[in-house]
């Protein structure tokens, strides 16, 4: 009964155009933000933080980035893992070269470095489309990972070939390194997620977003309408890579702490983020959240259920887990090919009518 536009009159275009036009949505959003900032930090245990919450937040950023590229601009990319690696290695190089630099600035700079690399590898998109572009971005995936494992400069010639994150503080609170508290890491990730989701929403609601979507839906018509395809595609690559780069920086900086390019940022990562975007819903900010939640939370829940509740052996549970998740992915895509965001949209339309049938 709460879920109504009726009686909620909009008298200006900005208010008609806002992110949550329905009052109930707006309250829910602020309640959620308040809960995430004021309640969760105090409830968070190390187990919950490390197995669910932190990876979830980080992958949300990566999924947002890939969704901008695939969902909004229609350019297929399989290089996400490598772009995350660029963010991670940029973080490592920057923070070891300039130890005085505030770590949040380092993360953002790492994102910008990734954006530049993304534009470079996005250049083929001007000539090739669809699956062929996906194959071209695979080149980025393999080349960059090769670069990061072979060229000593990137990992400061460490004997193991790994990069490890030194300890950095924000306002005197340790946020990186193994000694950082779960709360500090959580707050760092949360600030980035909220900020980046806000950026993504702003970019997709205005002219930039419309030029991206016009290229996605019909590129020839878009050009005749007046969209410069060069700028539209390259900005999409830049923004997407920026997001993915920040995600990689956070994954390495505050979550893994130490990483090796081939292992942490292989092609599996590219596919993981791609699945998040497809399952969550292409061209939807909410979808990026839902997709990341699906693929991060579900394995943990399954493990808790199978191993802890049913008492199955851990290795059997792990194999079954993969099969169940695979089956669920197929199921979701059969039930709603446009992803979980579309399911939510349908549910909302039904909610508006509920409890009346018409």
């Amino acid at each position: 009964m709460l879920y109504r536009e009726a009686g909620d009159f909009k008298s200006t275009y900005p208010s008609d155009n806002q992110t949550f036009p329905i009052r109930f949505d707006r309250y829910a959003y602020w309640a959620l933000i308040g809960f995430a900032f004021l309640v969760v930090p105090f409830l968070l245990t190390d187990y919950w933080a490390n197995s669910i919450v932190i990876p979830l937040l980080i992958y949300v950023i990566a999924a947002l980035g890939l969704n901008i590229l695939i969902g909004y601009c229609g350019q297929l990319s399989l290089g996400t893992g490598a772009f995350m690696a660029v963010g991670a290695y940029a973080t490592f190089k920057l923070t070891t070269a300039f130890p005085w630099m505030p770590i949040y600035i380092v993360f953002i700079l790492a994102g910008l470095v990734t954006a530049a690399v993304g534009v470079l590898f996005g250049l083929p998109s001007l000539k090739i489309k669809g699956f062929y572009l996906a194959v071209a971005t695979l080149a980025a995936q393999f080349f960059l990972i090769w670069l990061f494992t072979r060229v000593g400069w990137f990992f400061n010639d460490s004997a193991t070939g790994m990069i490890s994150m030194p300890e950095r503080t924000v306002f005197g609170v340790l946020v990186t390194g193994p000694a950082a508290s779960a709360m500090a890491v959580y707050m760092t990730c949360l600030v980035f997620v909220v900020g980046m989701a806000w950026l993504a929403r702003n970019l997709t609601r205005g002219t930039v977003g419309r030029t991206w979507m016009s290229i996605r839906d019909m590129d020839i018509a878009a050009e005749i309408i007046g969209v410069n395809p060069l700028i539209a595609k390259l900005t999409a690559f830049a923004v997407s890579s920026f997001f993915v780069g920040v995600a990689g920086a956070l994954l390495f900086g505050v979550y893994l702490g130490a990483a090796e390019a081939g292992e942490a940022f292989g092609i599996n990562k590219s596919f993981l983020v791609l699945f998040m975007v497809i399952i969550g819903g292409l061209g939807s900010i909410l979808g990026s959240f839902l997709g990341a939640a699906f693929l991060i939370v579900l394995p943990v829940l399954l493990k808790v259920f199978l191993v802890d509740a049913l008492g199955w052996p851990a290795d059997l549970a792990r194999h079954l887990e993969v099969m169940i998740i695979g089956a669920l992915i197929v199921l979701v895509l059969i039930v709603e090919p446009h992803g979980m965001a579309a399911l939510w949209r349908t549910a909302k339309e039904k909610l508006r009518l509920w409890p009346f049938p018409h």
Partner: protein
Amino acid sequence: MTVEQREQVPMLDTQTEGYVTADGRQIGGVVMELKNITLRFGGVVAIKDISFDIRHGEIRAIIGPNGAGKSSMLNVISGFYNPQEGELIYKGYKRPQMRPYKVSRMGIARTFQNIALFEGMSVLDNIMTGRMHHMKAGFLSQAFWWGAAAREEAENREAVEKIIDFLEIQAIRKTPVSRLPYGLKKRVELARALAAEPQILLLDEPMAGMNVEEKEDMSRFILDVNDEFGTTTVLIEHDMGVVMDLSDRVVVMDYGKKIGDGTPEEVMNNQDVIDAYLGVSHD
């Protein structure tokens, strides 16, 4: 020619006088002149040495049997094809070869024969996309939704709402285009072209596949647009009744050549045109 340069160019070629139409509208000077345009695709000659002009404020029709080269002509005007020979004079200046998105910035908007709307976007977003040239907010301003971006969005929304009112599509403004029936899609496409506030509006078969009622609606909109905004309109249409009623002057094409040019009455009585439509052997 950049947008800034365009502003300095005089609106019209003042050397040529206009004329007054049968229904008493004053038609101005020449906005666009096509001189000896020839367009080839490999060995196929799509357009052969065609010249005609488009005057300010008139409704100019291009007709001809299938495959006559009408759509190619429109594609030449909108910059999608570059003719091998001939020149295109727009507002008194020769237009160099340029990408279509630049042509559209110079004030030429069009609709397509097969609807080319952005299916994944709402009606409102489609029309707003057409208004792109009027929105200049920088990238950062949009990213932070601060200053120019938010202001422009509201201002241009107002302009778009006027077009929505004009074309009577208020009820569907937030509907995804993919859910609309054919006739409405055609109307939304017209709205998107109008949103750019073009100097020349190109309509490629705006009434193809419509029933009589929809055709009447569309005709009314085309006339109203011309009346109210003074938009110069170039249209391709197969329905002869519509063409003869709407247009001020008609170009007739057949096999890539121009076979007639003049008022609807002149064209209807032209022997070449009658031959082309009724069919005689081409030697």
